[in-house]
């Protein structure tokens, strides 16, 4: 799957690209509007990560050009601006998602996965990894043929770890992913531990071999061979 990263901050673009490449994505990195327009004209991407403030213009113009050419590439705006008007304008122009800097790479990866899932045609809502079968349309999880009955939080947690499999996901990223905007009001990560314990228990009961590892109190990692 091909991803175009349009980001003028090289160090950030490189981190994104490195992180995503571990996930069988092919990443291309451009740093200005001009080269971005050239790329989207010649190629199709599964997902485009678009920074709005570019040195030679507004990233939204790239989005406009894309929609004018009837391209259906998924677009996630990554921006330092988080005003409601900024979001609305981006989404009205046809962006699929809007992520405010600073963000966790694991969160970005989860959003990309979601955008790609939504844009793909039927039959592909099934995610298979690490001995688990997740139907992202029906939001169900099976271990082999054995269904596991998960709560909403547990399901979100599992899907998050699955889309970021084989990488360490920090507890901050998980907390933010699970509690949305409410995160930040608390600095207690014990609730993640509680969710994780329940999730593991339910999956193991359904016959799963535990692939989730705690990494030195830093975060968690789901290992899928």
């Amino acid at each position, binding site marked *: 799957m091909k991803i175009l990263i349009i980001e003028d901050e090289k160090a950030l673009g490189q981190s994104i690209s490195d*992180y995503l490449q571990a996930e069988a994505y092919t990443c291309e990195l451009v740093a200005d509007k001009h080269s971005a327009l050239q790329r989207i004209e010649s190629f199709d991407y599964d997902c485009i990560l678009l920074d709005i403030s570019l040195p030679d213009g507004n990233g939204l113009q790239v989005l406009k050009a894309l929609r004018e050419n009837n391209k259906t590439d998924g677009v996630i705006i990554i921006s*330092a601006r988080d*005003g409601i008007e900024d979001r609305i304008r981006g989404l009205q122009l046809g962006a699929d998602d809007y992520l405010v800097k600073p963000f966790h790479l694991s969160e970005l990866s989860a959003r990309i996965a979601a955008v790609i899932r939504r844009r793909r045609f039927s039959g592909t809502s099934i995610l298979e990894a690490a001995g688990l079968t997740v139907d992202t349309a029906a939001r169900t999880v099976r271990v082999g043929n054995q269904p596991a009955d998960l709560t909403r939080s547990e399901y979100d947690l599992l899907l998050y770890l699955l889309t970021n499999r084989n990488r360490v996901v*920090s507890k*901050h990223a998980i907390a933010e992913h699970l509690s949305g905007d409410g995160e930040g009001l608390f600095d207690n990560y014990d609730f993640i531990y*509680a969710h994780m314990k329940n999730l593991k228990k339910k999956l193991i009961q359904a016959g799963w071999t535990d692939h989730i590892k705690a990494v030195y109190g830093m975060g968690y990692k789901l290992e899928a061979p």
Partner: protein
Amino acid sequence: MKLLNKTLQYYFWLSIVLLMVAIPVFYYVLQRIVLSNIDASLVATKTQLIPRLRVMEMEPEALQPQLDDGVTLEKAPRRPESDSLYTSDKYRLLTSYLVINQETYRLQIKSSLADHQRLIGSIIILQSVLLILLLTGLLLINQSLAKRIWKPFYQTLRKLRAYKVDDPAPLQLAPSGISEFGELNSAVEQLAERSRQSYLSQKEFAENASHELRTPLAVFQGKLEMLMQTTPLSEEQAALISELADASHRMTRLNKGLLLLTRIQNGQFPDTAAVFVRETARHLLAQYEPQIAQKGLKVEEDWLDELPVNMSPNLLEVLLGNLLSNAIRHNLPGGKIVVKGANGVLTVSNTGQAYPLQEDRIYQRFAKNSKDAESLGLGLEIVRKICDLYGFEVKYGWEKGMHNFQVIMKS
């Protein structure tokens, strides 16, 4: 003391002194004038009498001529002296000596002073009344004039009191015909404009700085996450990365909080909707359930009023989120939270530290009352700024071990 009264006071004392001095002086001067008048008329009477008395000289046998009241003519044993004028017992007397037929006569003409005294008295009274009337009139006129003249000053004062540096419009003062006030107004307007400009640029700076910080923060966080993926990773390295991640997380939160404050101050939440505090509070309490359960807190809700308000739903969520999360964060393990809504007042109470917070400090930026190092000290300032924006009033109280935060939403 008001400036008006101060000047009036001086006028008043001056009037008293003037009255005290003027009335005796006036009396004295009047007395002198009256006396000299009487004397003149006595001398005139004498001058008129002399020819008539000369008749006696022509006809020695004739009887003394009929004399007016107050005029006496007697033979005097002494030799003639010069005329004399003196006052005796309410009369003014002119004594003159004349020689008729080798005999010395003493001519006395007297004039009653009583009438004149009365006249002087009346004049003095009239004069005093006039003076007093004049002075009081003067005072009254001065007062009303001063009030009118000072009106622009008071208007300026009123406007200055109401003026807030974050008002979108610059300070506009009514023009004044008086040059001093005109100068004052223009100086004040300039001052207000300067502080408004520096406030605006400070606000702009806060917003720009917050935005500009986001990209390096994103780089930092991204690199940190890449660092987490490196292998092999020792426990020591992981601990270091973990601490960096905590710091990065705090920076992000701080950045968000500052930006939110700036936004509220900039009035960038123009969207208002009819929302219910009860509904939002319940929704948030459900969302915080893991944290509440974690601390073993007991939540009591008491809603007599759904508390409908017209405000930005986002800000209501931020407002309640801050109050409720504070009540959770600063609570004791196994403590209690009471959320009450009645008569337009929302009260969030919680158990916590056993002494009251300093009310004058809790709304200040970064004033931390808690030992919780992660607490940003921005939460209550955000609460107050939101309340300011919608004209709500926020109050803190401490009673029987409970910390109470009240938001009065209806006045």
